C-alpha cells in the first residue's frame, strides 16, 4: 500500500499521457481499418478507456477526486452505448444478413 502510493511519484505524468495517446490512436486506426462492425465497436471501447486512464492519471497527480467520479460516469455512458450499439448490430444482421459496415451507405444516395 505504502509502496504503491510512492511509485506513481517516480513516473512522470508525460508517460501516462503518451501511453493514453498511443492507445487512442490505435483505437482510431482500428475504426478506419476494419469493416467488421463488432470490431469497430470494440475499438470505440478502447478509445473510451484510454481517455478514462488519462483522467484517472490526472486525478491522481492533482489529488482531485472529481475526475475519478467523471470516469465513473463515462463508464455508465459506455455501458449504455454498448447495449444500444449491439442491438443495432443485431438489427443489421437480421435485415441485411451481414455486419459489413460498407453495406450501410443508404444515406449516401
Amino acid at each position, binding site marked *: 500500500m505504502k509502496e504503491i502510493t510512492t511509485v*506513481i511519484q517516480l513516473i512522470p505524468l508525460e508517460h501516462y499521457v503518451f501511453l493514453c495517446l498511443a*492507445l487512442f490512436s490505435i483505437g*482510431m486506426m482500428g475504426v478506419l481499418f476494419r469493416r467488421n462492425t463488432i470490431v469497430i465497436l470494440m475499438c470505440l471501447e478502447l478509445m473510451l*478507456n484510454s481517455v478514462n486512464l488519462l483522467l484517472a492519471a490526472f486525478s491522481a497527480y492533482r489529488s*482531485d477526486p472529481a475526475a*475519478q467520479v467523471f470516469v465513473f460516469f463515462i463508464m455508465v455512458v459506455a455501458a449504455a452505448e454498448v*447495449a444500444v450499439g449491439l*442491438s443495432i448490430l443485431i438489427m443489421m444482421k437480421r*435485415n441485411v444478413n451481414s455486419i459489413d459496415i460498407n453495406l450501410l451507405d443508404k444515406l449516401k444516395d
Partner: protein
Amino acid sequence: MVFLFYLLGGVALLSALMVVFSKNPINSVIYLIICFLAIAGNYILLNAQFLAVVHIIVYTGAIMVLFLFVIMLLNLNKENEPHKKLITKLAAIISGALLLFVLLGAAKGVAQIPFNENFDPEIGLVGRLGKVLFTDYMLPFEVSSVLFLAAMVGAVMLGKKDVKKI
C-alpha cells in the same frame, strides 16, 4: 515497482494492436480483455482502487461477455470477413500514425504538471469517492439511472422481432 508501469503499458499497447489486426472476432475480444486487465493494473498503480474494481466488473465482466454473447449468437466467429482494399488499409495505418504524431507533438512539454503540494494518496479509495459522488454529484448520479432506463428501452425496442425493415 516502476518497471511495472512500463510492463503494463507495453501489454496494453500490444494487445490493443492485436485487437485491430487479429482475423477472428473472438480473438479480438480476448485481446481486448487482456488490454482492459492491463488498464485495471494501471488504475491500481495509481491507487484508484474503486475504479480498478468497477473497471474489471463492468468492462471485463459485463461488456466483454455481452460482445462474446452477440458473436456466438449471430455465429460471427468466421474468418471470411471481407477486407478493405490494401490502399484503404494503408491509408488507415498512415492516418493513425499521423494522428499519434500530432497528438504527441501537441502534448510534449505541456503536461509537466508538478505534484500537488498536499499530495493525498487516498482519493481513489471507496469511502472518499463515495462521499464525493453522493454529495457533490448526486444529481448526475440520479440522471444516469434515467439514461440506463432509456438505453434499456431502446435496446428492447431495437431487438424486437417484428420491426419494420430498414
